[in-house]
């Protein structure tokens, strides 16, 4: 071989080497599609065999009200029942904005959404008709969530039965919020000169009863046709001007002695001087003038059938137990057959609705449940099309306490046994002092010629119809405990003992059969469906704790469709700490210092809910479907000024506990149209993790590294945010923003997928791996130049930057524990032996591969 040939060969090979290097494609770690998720023992797994850890968000808070914008939304605040033809298309956000919002949700670190919708949204007009436009919208929204890598849990949401059950109130009432007087005043509307909504020529000093309220507390969920059926004794006419007024306002104007003055104010003229004389109260002139003003503006008396039985509790949850309308609807929905025997469904005009299958009028329970079932069937047909639908959450927080309703029933049915006079005697005994007050004859129960203060109070309660004014059949019918229409041969009466019975073992007797019915229907439509169910909103919520020997815990056993269907169900409890406003109307947000929540630890409480699944539900997976925090503590202005620190601390507590317990979770909530004044547009709740400008708030707590799919059974996870409490050790750097995930030996070759938010790692981050390798993809922050979170072009203003990491564990030994450790560069800590350093689009590799 000639030298020249050899040299040519070498040089040629050199050129070949240089140019033979290949360049590959940029990794795209966003999955083209998500695979179906199903329960496996106490975990959720995808089709690839990975353990799914859900960190989700409820979308969204404003879904509880129809989709309205601008003035329409404001109009709805004070006139909710009179706007017809409302739609939920656009809830949680319009479809053409969904890409931006879902991308923001993904970029904030959520891998799933609990997508809320209303029964009313699907079936707004009739038991037999669905809103195809809404279903098409729902279909599109689910698909868009999939495009953004988000799992979807479908939830039919409801609280206090229906948005049509509401109580108006005036936030601009005189006095300081939180005071008793202000609470009283808040039940009255603004004057015409204040509201500016009265008809032309109206007295500016007159109360604007039609449009003078600023907001209302309402339920949400059920459509109007269901209201017609469950509360047929109510006047549901849209032009009923009394609807929504606090029910006592209908009694203030009663003039039983027919002397031209409302009796109540006559009584006030008597009792106020008396009480002032005893030194118990002192009213100033302004207050007395206000009372005169109220008397002058008191509305014409109206019965409770003209309005909803509801009070404007700022913490609306009280109405779950105190609203007779809500209680009755739920009792009829779940247990109408036993609690209201013989009750049939009536239409708006009071005509019985015929079940086409039987040719007989629908029993009320069957009518309501079959309507609910039909709604779910239609939704399941939509959900079936989408692999990212991970479940069907049948009903939100089903109320299962009927104490007040059953007492009411007993009040009537036991009156013959002297219950009414016993109550009078009881109150008289409690407040025995005689008062020289005049009481209408028909209210005097004692026969000693004297009126005690207790008797007087008892009189007032009945006069104002806080208690039934009497135990007559008319009164009972007004309250919906009995119904009689001789022309249609319709008659029923509530069974008091059955109502009392609802308070015991309700979940097992009524909720489980309901869940099983709905689960069966959904599975018929979507054979791969996973059913999520919630614990009943029961005595333990009302009274706290578990009672003596667990008497208040009334859990059912796990719903069952057929043998071996354990993999069908997921338990989804909700839990909130003591964050709700104090008891009252028109209350201010709670006040906390930032230290109040800093050191709290939620693990024990959350673990107790998880244990319910162990103890009662065959140890099926537990995913917290709701938790969260208000964002307006100390007032929204102060909260903003404090950078939402209290709320942020609360959320951080949650997430630290979820990570410790390895519990999946879905925070309440993401409200695209959150508002500084009206919050999430429902009952002044303000829980949204984004603010009215579409900017994340408190994201240092909730935008944290999180896995979605884990290649083996998770054993440990933690992230130390800025809000983590450090107990420092000498010479050791506090591992700020350290994230660690450990899991048992891999069970699949598919990667563990991780989300890493840029905001926690602005200077990049190191990755240490126990074994295997990673790939990373950076998604830079997006500014939406047209971003505006108001108006028709509503879009989030910016979407944070983030990373997706795919971790491929390679060690294959059975007892191996894989580990991913992430830390930012920490001052005072030299990072060594890392496998990767990642900063935006740049990846440094080190350590040992494989």
């Amino acid at each position, binding site marked *: 071989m000639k030298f020249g040939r050899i040299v040519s060969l070498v040089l040629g090979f050199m050129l070949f080497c240089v140019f033979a290097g290949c360049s590959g494609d940029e*990794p*795209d770690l966003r999955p083209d599609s998500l695979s179906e998720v199903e329960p496996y023992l106490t975990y959720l797994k995808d089709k690839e065999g990975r353990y799914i850890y859900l960190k989700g968000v409820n979308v969204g808070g404003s879904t509880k009200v129809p989709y309205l914008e601008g003035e329409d939304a404001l109009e709805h605040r004070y006139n909710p029942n009179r706007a017809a033809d409302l739609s939920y298309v656009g809830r949680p956000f319009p479809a053409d904005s969904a890409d931006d919002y879902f991308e923001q949700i993904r970029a904030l670190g959520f891998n799933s959404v609990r997508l809320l919708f209303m029964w009313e949204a699907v079936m707004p007009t009739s038991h037999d008709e669905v809103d195809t436009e809404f279903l098409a919208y729902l279909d599109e929204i689910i698909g868009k969530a999939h495009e953004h890598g988000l799992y979807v849990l479908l939830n039919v949401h409801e609280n206090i039965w229906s948005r049509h059950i509401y109580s108006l109130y005036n936030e601009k009432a005189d006095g300081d919020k939180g005071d008793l007087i202000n609470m009283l005043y808040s039940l009255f509307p603004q004057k015409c000169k204040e509201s500016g909504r009265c008809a032309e020529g109206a007295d500016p000093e007159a109360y604007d009863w039609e449009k003078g309220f600023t907001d209302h507390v309402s339920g949400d969920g059920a459509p109007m046709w269901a209201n017609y059926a469950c509360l047929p004794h109510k006047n549901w006419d849209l032009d009923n001007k009394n609807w929504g007024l606090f029910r006592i306002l209908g009694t203030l104007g009663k003039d039983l002695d027919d002397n031209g003055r409302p009796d109540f104010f006559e009584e006030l003229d008597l009792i106020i001087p008396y009480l002032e004389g005893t030194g118990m109260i002192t009213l100033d002139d302004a207050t007395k003038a206000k009372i005169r003003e109220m008397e002058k503006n008191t509305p014409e008396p109206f019965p409770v059938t003209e309005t909803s039985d509801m009070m404007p509790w700022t913490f609306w949850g009280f109405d779950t137990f105190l609203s007779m309308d809500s209680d009755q609807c739920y009792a009829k929905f779940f247990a109408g057959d036993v609690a209201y025997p013989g009750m049939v469904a009536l239409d708006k005009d009071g005509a019985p609705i015929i079940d086409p299958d039987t040719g007989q009028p629908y029993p009320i329970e069957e009518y309501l449940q079959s309507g609910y079932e039909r709604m779910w069937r239609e939704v399941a047909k939509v959900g079936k099309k989408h692999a990212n639908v991970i479940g069907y959450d049948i009903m939100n927080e089903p109320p299962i306490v009927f104490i007040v309703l059953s007492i009411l029933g007993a009040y009537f049915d036991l009156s013959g046994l002297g219950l009414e006079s016993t109550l009078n005697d009881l109150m008289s005994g409690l407040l025995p002092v005689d008062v020289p007050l005049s009481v209408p004859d028909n209210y005097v129960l004692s026969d000693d010629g004297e009126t005690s203060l207790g008797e007087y109070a008892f009189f007032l309660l009945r006069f104002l119809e806080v208690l039934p004014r009497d135990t007559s059949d008319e009164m009972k019918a007004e309250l919906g405990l009995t119904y009689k229409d001789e022309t249609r041969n319709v008659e029923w009466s509530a069974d008091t003992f059955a109502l009392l019975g609802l308070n015991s073992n309700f979940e097992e007797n009524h909720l489980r059969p309901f869940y099983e019915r709905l689960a069966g229907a959904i599975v018929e439509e979507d054979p791969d469906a996973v059913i999520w169910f919630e614990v009943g909103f029961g005595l333990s919520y009302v009274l706290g704790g578990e009672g003596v020997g667990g008497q208040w815990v009334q859990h059912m056993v796990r719903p069952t469709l057929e043998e071996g269907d354990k993999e069908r169900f997921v338990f989804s409890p909700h839990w909130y700490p003591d964050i709700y406003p104090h008891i009252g109307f028109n209350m201010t947000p709670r006040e906390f210092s930032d230290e109040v929540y800093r050191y709290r630890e939620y693990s024990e409480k959350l673990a107790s809910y998880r244990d319910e699944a162990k103890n009662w539900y065959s140890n099926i997976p537990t995913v917290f479907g709701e938790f969260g925090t208000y964002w307006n503590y100390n007032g929204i202005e102060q909260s903003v000024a404090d950078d939402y620190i209290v709320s942020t601390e609360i959320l951080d507590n949650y997430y630290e506990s979820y990570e410790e317990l390895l519990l999946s979770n879905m925070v309440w909530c993401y409200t695209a149209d959150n508002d500084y004044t009206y919050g999430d547009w429902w009952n002044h709740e303000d829980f949204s993790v984004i603010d009215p400008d579409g900017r994340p708030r408190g994201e240092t707590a909730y935008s944290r590294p999180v896995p979605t799919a884990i290649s083996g059974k998770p054993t440990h996870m933690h992230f130390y945010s800025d809000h983590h409490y450090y107990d420092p050790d000498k010479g050791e750097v506090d591992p700020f923003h350290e994230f660690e995930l450990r899991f048992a030996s891999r069970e699949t070759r598919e990667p563990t997928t991780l989300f890493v938010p840029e905001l926690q790692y602005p200077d990049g981050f190191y990755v240490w791996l126990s074994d295997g390798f990673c790939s990373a993809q950076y998604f830079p922050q997006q500014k939406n130049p047209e971003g505006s979170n108001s108006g028709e072009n509503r879009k989030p203003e910016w979407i944070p930057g983030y990373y997706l990491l795919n971790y491929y564990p390679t060690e294959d030994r059975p007892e191996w524990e894989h580990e991913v450790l992430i830390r930012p560069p920490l001052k005072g800590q030299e990072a060594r032996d890392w496998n990767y350093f990642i900063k935006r*689009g740049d990846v440094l590799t080190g350590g040992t591969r*494989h």
Partner: protein
Amino acid sequence: MRRKNTWILRSVRAMILLAAPAFAFELFAQETPAQSADVSPTVASEKTQPTETEGEKLPSWVDDKPTKIDLSKVPMEEVCVDPELVASSCGSGKRIVFKADFQSVFFIKNDEDFDDTPPEYNEDSQQSAFLGTYLRPEFSFYATDNLKIFWEFEIGLNLWSRNNADQNATGSGDYFLFKQRELNAQGSFMDGLVGFSVGYQHFSDPTGLFLNHWIGAASFISKPESGVFTLSMAQIPDNTAEGILTDENSLTRDRYVFGFRADMPFKSGETKLVFSPAVYHLYDDTVVDYSKNLANLSLHLDLEWRYLTFIADLAWQYGITSNGAYDGGDVIHSGYAAQIHLGLDFDPFLLDFNFVNLSGDDDHEANDSDGAFLYSGKNRSKTILLSEDEIRDRGDNLDERMGSSDGGFTQIRAGYQLVDLNVAMNVTDYFQPALVVGAAVVNNDTNAMRASFVGMETNLNLKFMVDDVLDFHLVGAILVPGKAASARINGYDRSKTNLMYAGEVAMGVHF
């Protein structure tokens, strides 16, 4: 001292590093003429010099070195410890030949990285330094003149600060280190046409850039007139913990190398040339589900002309790692390495120029393509910070620290280019100062945080020699780091590029 690619430099008398006498003696011991079966074609980038066996004609260009030794009169079973003694009295047949390298070394650096931010608990300060000692004995057990067992091991490097002769607890970290380097049998029959080398041994491809490992190997070696041809199978230790019991081990999760290498000498006038092409197949199935099949084609050219030595090394790799991509797909490897070395011997001056280029990956980690060369970690550069320090390898050389390790190889995703120039002068027979200047850059700055410059090193090596058995090195080095190095190396602040200073004092005894 490792037998790496620097052997060839030593053999042309351009080396300035330690152990030249040991090397010479090793040649003498292993490649004794006539009866010797010693053939070490697999030694790292060794200039393979076919030796003349009895009845075998040496290539015409091969000179008379190493010294031919008449072993016929050496009594059998006598241990030979001195070359001269061996030359005079070690006989043929059954015998043991022994040699050893001893070194005590002091090394100090101002910092391990280029960032002076102290850790919160600064126990070891920023400084990096040690005093240590090692001994590396070698034994050649000759069963016959053409069959021997070779054994090399290393005791140490034991740090003076940690070594405790009374320590019995082997888990304490301060016991005597014992590393077995080579244990193999070598034989040569039929006038060299049939030979073998089987056992744990140093194994290298002709360039030394890909394979340059101590591994278990079995080689069939044939040495006809035209050169040396070697067919090998080797097994590289893997990372998996399979234990040492046979019932806990198998051949299913291991890393293998199969290869063929040719070393063909040519001579024309004063020009001598060795052309060594080789092809290897690396099969790595140590990681379940992630098997790697990689072919490596190596070309080595060694040209000598009077006072000039020119060496070109080229290696190209192509292969597939199953399922190794981000999406679970396969990864295509395609990398290369190139090295050019130029040596000039103008007595008393010695000049060495070296350039090595290791390909890097594309911009994306764990995609379907991997362009980073699987690198042995060893090259011909004289730098001691930018590449391996041949006085004492400490594992802190930047080329390896810039990369990640994968199954006994280093991959530098950013790629690596290192150029250096060494100027040495034989001032006297006992003193040889050498100045080295080198600089390195990366090929793909995307994989080095958008920076290209790795650093520039200058070192001065003062070498004192006493009778070829005792030498001293006094070395001072300074490294001006670049952003690429600081991005990869710094423990905290990746923007800092503080100077790195290093000093080294070594005493070596070789016989």
